[in-house]
């Protein structure tokens, strides 16, 4: 990939018509030759790591979670760290698809589809960890208040139970939202596909979509309604995840700042992951006209803004542990900075405090290599943040006699690497079987840029954001 590309305010570059957009997006799915070696490498590596995870889980089910590094006093280890990390990564998808839709941000159109897919796959990875952490995943239904013969209901006062509801609602709403958005595009694939098997599959998934006005009208209301439902979820899910810590009484966990700071961190990590995927994929599939440098620049800016909020959170944690005057709070901060995990804390400050400052410079925001590297720092930093929060507080609690040290085992590492594999496998599998860019929304965007006449190059001016909303998307589709 070329390291630097020019900035342009148009959201679709190059000379595009409705047909060329349609062909470009559908071609990735319909033309099996459009996938190159990088795709195969990512998919295969993901698949191999997924198999590794399968083995680790099998061994885990056979031996129990003792094979992990979790132990007294470190009851939560990599499993919960990874859980929070993955859940956070998912947030960018929901933010892009729901909040940016309600705010009528046209630049969401080209990135929302795979950001939403990323959300789903990240939640799938995240969900594994608490499920396996219970030690008896086959009893997972006990977490729900079903009419049982035990006279037992879950403990509704426990944030861990709120988590169950938050995550399952999030997964369901995200999946429905994603699927609904896919219907018109899948119908387009059904109409373009020559292969009878693909046509049947896409036809079944399109659920009888004909592109009739009545379909569009219902689609628009359903989509806006789901966006409204998802919007509070963007804020609530990670707030509730943060309650897992904030509701407890442990120094370093019992922090009122956690909900907003976790949400900001989630969006921060999520955008880093979107960029991590978008930068190579747009090059491999030559989607530079749709995922423009403007998109990438704005995503980097969102990352900078949320990164600053997160860093502000670290400063607040430091300040308030001193200002509280509480010996346990002060010691907790001392152990974070200079204790046995001090290296992790300073790495965290480097990754989430120092490195994002480079994003202030437009030259770096438009330098794809630099941006990609920064995104990796951000992902690492967000992982370290959860590591510092969980491990330091658990291994340095009130009683020095119960202090300890947490060491991960190869099974911890295997699970983590395995979920990375699962994520990669699902993501690249998705790129191959479903349209990675929202086809009809791009055509609608083009309509708003050039008007009804069939495209002759791009418009000279940027689209007015106020024009968003899909009401204009009549008969022009497909």
């Amino acid at each position, binding site marked *: 990939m070329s390291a630097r590309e020019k900035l342009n305010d148009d959201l679709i570059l190059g000379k595009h018509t409705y047909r060329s957009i349609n062909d470009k997006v559908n071609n990735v799915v319909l033309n099996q030759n459009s996938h190159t070696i990088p795709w195969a490498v990512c998919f295969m590596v993901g698949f191999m790591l997924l198999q590794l995870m399968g083995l680790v889980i099998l061994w885990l089910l056979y031996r129990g979670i003792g094979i992990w590094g979790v132990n007294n006093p470190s009851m939560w280890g990599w499993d919960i760290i990874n859980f929070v990390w993955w859940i956070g990564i998912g947030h960018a998808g929901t933010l892009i698809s729901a909040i940016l839709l309600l705010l009528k941000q046209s630049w969401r159109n080209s990135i929302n589809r795979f950001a939403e897919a990323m959300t789903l796959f990240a939640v799938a990875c995240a969900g594994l960890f608490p499920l396996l952490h219970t030690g008896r995943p086959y009893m997972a239904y006990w977490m729900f208040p*079903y*009419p*049982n*013969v*035990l*006279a*037992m209901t879950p403990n509704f006062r426990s944030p861990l139970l709120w988590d169950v509801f938050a995550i399952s609602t999030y997964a369901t709403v995200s999946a429905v939202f994603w699927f609904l958005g896919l219907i018109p595009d899948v119908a387009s694939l*059904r*109409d373009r596909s020559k292969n009878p098997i693909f*046509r*049947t599959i896409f*036809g*079944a998934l399109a*659920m*009888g979509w004909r592109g009739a006005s009545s379909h569009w009208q219902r689609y628009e209301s359903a989509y806006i309604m789901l966006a409204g439902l998802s919007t509070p979820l963007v804020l609530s899910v990670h707030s509730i995840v943060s309650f897992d810590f904030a509701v407890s009484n442990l120094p370093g966990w019992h922090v009122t700042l956690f909900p907003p700071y976790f949400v900001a961190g989630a969006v921060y990590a999520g955008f880093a992951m979107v960029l991590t995927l978008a930068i190579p994929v747009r090059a491999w599939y030559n989607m530079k006209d749709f995922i423009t440098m403007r998109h990438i620049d704005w995503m980097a800016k969102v990352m900078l803004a949320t990164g600053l909020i997160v860093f502000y959170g670290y400063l607040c944690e430091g300040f308030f542990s001193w200002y509280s005057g509480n010996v346990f709070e002060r010691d907790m901060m001392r152990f974070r900075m200079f204790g046995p995990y001090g290296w992790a804390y300073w790495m965290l400050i480097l990754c989430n405090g120092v490195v994002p400052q480079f994003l202030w410079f437009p030259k770096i925001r438009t330098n794809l290599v630099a941006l990609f590297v920064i995104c990796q720092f951000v992902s690492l930093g967000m992982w370290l943040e959860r590591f510092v929060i969980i491990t330091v507080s658990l291994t340095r609690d009130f009683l020095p006699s119960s202090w300890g040290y947490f060491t991960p085992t190869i099974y911890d590492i295997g699970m983590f690497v395995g979920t990375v594999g699962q994520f990669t496998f699902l993501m690249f599998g998705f790129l191959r079987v479903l349209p990675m860019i929202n086809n009809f929304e791009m055509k609608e965007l083009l309509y708003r840029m050039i008007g009804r006449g069939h495209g002759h190059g791009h418009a000279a001016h940027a689209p007015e954001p106020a024009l968003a909303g899909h009401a204009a998307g009549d008969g022009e589709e497909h």
Partner: protein
Amino acid sequence: MAQVFHPRANVLAKLSLILLATGPVLLLLIGTGVSRASHNTKAGIAADQPVPFSHEHHVSELGIDCRYCHSNVETSAHATVPPTETCMSCHSQIWTNSPLLEPIRQSYKTNTPVTWAQVNKVPEFVYFNHSIHIKRGLNCNICHGSVQQMQLAYKGKPFFMVWCLNCHRNPEKYVGDPDKVFSIYEKGQKGQDREYANMPAEERDILNVGEHTRSPEELAKGEEWVKKFNIKKKQLADCWICHR
């Protein structure tokens, strides 16, 4: 291009949406139904025993006390299944040639216990003690159903945790006079019509169906028993009471 699906396929699409919404509820209902069915709980299903022992004959017709065979029920955790010697205390004199009793005689001769099939069983992670329940005035039938009517022994009631907790959360609904635990079988014996007629409704209900819903007065009496026994209601439904 020809249509992929016939218009009728729309029905399938709608049906799949409906199933998506109702499916989980249906699955839940099926699950709750199956878990409560007697094929799962084994309640009401007679076990295959080496000797077709009839509680009805020995208790209702002959008037043998429960404790004659289940001799440790008042003093130990287990009610205990009687040793062969208990059977032989009578059957060395009567029915000595009955082919049905051959396994008992064999067992006696070879000094090997009869392998009775266990009918009532609590899981291994549950601590249950018979003696304390008898001492708090709980009749056998409250948990085991009306055993004195059973031709072949079966589990009288499904041992659900909700069912244990029903009493452990509200002990006043069941505790009573420990002296009357075994007397109801005497009164209910065949031929004791006058005694049976004079039985209080609660005793008769428990004798016949093992279940009685107490009236407010009876509940007040139950409360008195709870106080008298010094039962700590707040602790009684704690996990560790049974899961030690």
